[in-house]
């Protein structure tokens, strides 16, 4: 229980738990939709989902400052491509949080002159750009890792004791297979990178669906959100699995 208390003392920990709950409700609703006699359960799941979603806004208030601080930190990254990607991604996150705050002001009734759909669209678009740029950064890091794996393998093959091993790029027909093998091997070597890539890939399904670029169903969005929330929870419980910038 002590670990649970320490975990929930962090706002981010609680927020991830609630997000996981929200998307689990979405997934359950999709699974129960076609079954008979589950109308009452579906209504309850919908109301739980909407109250958790509304409540989570309180965790996001003031996160503009977090995003500005993250932008300042990403400007100081040494490598050019991650620096560019992270800075632009965090700038988009700042705009997303500003739009989110405007939507919150509208939802509590403090102002009536806000066009909800327009601001919702803006927020989703900037969230989408943020995830896209994060994925570009992840891809760059994966390519670096793959290069590292190839270099290590070349070093091992050059050494006299080492066995000749097999050549990664042996034949044209094997190329795709070898590339995928190298890809997964690089990810396995670097768990934080794997976790971050999985999180961003699952997260991007949500704005893709909302913007109409890739319309999926409630089940896909729910599952994607649940997996990314669990990945986020793991990085909070085990901070060493958080992808660090150098």
């Amino acid at each position: 229980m002590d670990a649970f208390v320490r975990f929930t003392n962090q706002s981010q920990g609680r927020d991830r738990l609630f997000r996981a709950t929200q998307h689990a409700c979405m997934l359950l609703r999709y699974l129960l939709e076609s079954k008979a006699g589950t109308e009452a359960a579906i209504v309850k799941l919908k109301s739980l989902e909407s109250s958790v979603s509304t409540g989570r806004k309180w965790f996001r208030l003031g996160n503009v400052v977090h995003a500005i601080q993250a932008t300042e930190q990403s400007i100081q990254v040494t490598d050019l491509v991650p620096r560019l990607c992270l800075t632009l991604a965090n700038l988009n996150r700042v705009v997303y949080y500003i739009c989110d705050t405007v939507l919150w002001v509208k939802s509590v009734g403090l102002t009536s002159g806000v066009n909800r759909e327009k601001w919702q669209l803006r927020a989703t678009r900037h969230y989408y750009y943020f995830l896209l740029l994060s994925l570009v950064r992840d891809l760059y890091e994966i390519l670096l890792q793959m290069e590292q794996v190839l270099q290590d393998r070349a070093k091992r093959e050059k050494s006299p004791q080492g066995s000749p091993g097999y050549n990664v790029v042996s034949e044209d027909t094997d190329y795709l297979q070898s590339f995928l093998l190298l890809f997964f091997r690089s990810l396995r070597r670097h768990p934080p990178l794997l976790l971050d890539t999985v999180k961003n890939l699952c997260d991007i399904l949500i704005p893709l669906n909302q913007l109409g670029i890739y319309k999926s169903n409630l089940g896909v969005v729910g599952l994607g959100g649940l997996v990314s929330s669990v990945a986020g929870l793991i990085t909070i419980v085990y901070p060493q699995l958080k992808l660090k910038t150098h």
Partner: protein
Amino acid sequence: MDAWVRFSAQSQARERLCRAAQYACSLLGHALQRHGASPELQKQIRQLEGHLSLGRKLLRLGNSADALESAKRAVHLSDVVLRFCVTVSHLNRALYFACDNVLWAGKSGLAPRVDQEKWAQRSFRYYLFSLIMNLSRDAYEIRLLMEQETSAYGRRMKVSGVPGGVETGGPGEPGTPGACLPQLALKFRLRVLLLARVLRGHPPLLLDVLRNACDLFIPLDKLGLWRCGPGIVGLCGLISSILSILTLICPWLRLKP
């Protein structure tokens, strides 16, 4: 900026901020009503207060575990009175949070058949017991510190050779009722001065006393034991929320058992 990031990373800090905003809205709503503001503005403030109250209930989900952990730790305190007061206070707080979770389930539609009024009364009752235990603990600590001060003062007087003391000296002979009254008044004044001195020398204790005293008005009003009105409730709630935010920003101001 870094300070805000660190502060808002604690979920308790966010909840306290929402609490301060909620009671500020309550106070503002009462003030607007008194001065005849537009019903539209009053409705907006009431709506915001409702949103804040519901949001806080979600932010407090899981606080029962925190209170139970604190109660578990308090069982190992050395002083018997402190052990009793602090443990019982935390247990009551855990029950208050459990009732609060039931209220949230009712309001969010998960358990629509929940009797809101009954569970609200229950939760305020546990909250009141917890506050009474806190104030008892504060009173005990104050008494201990006052005894320490008087014995330290007595030792200082003995060392410097001054005859008699605060307690024994005084005009009039024993047995004359007319002369007892000024003596009592003097004794009372000295006690009050000693209390002020003790509280001034221990800011965490002073903060805790003020916070619990302000908080006490809320359940007393909601349970109908002492109806003080929404203005007083709003003001006291706001003051106690600001004081608890202070203890979060400056952890040395928190009263340690």
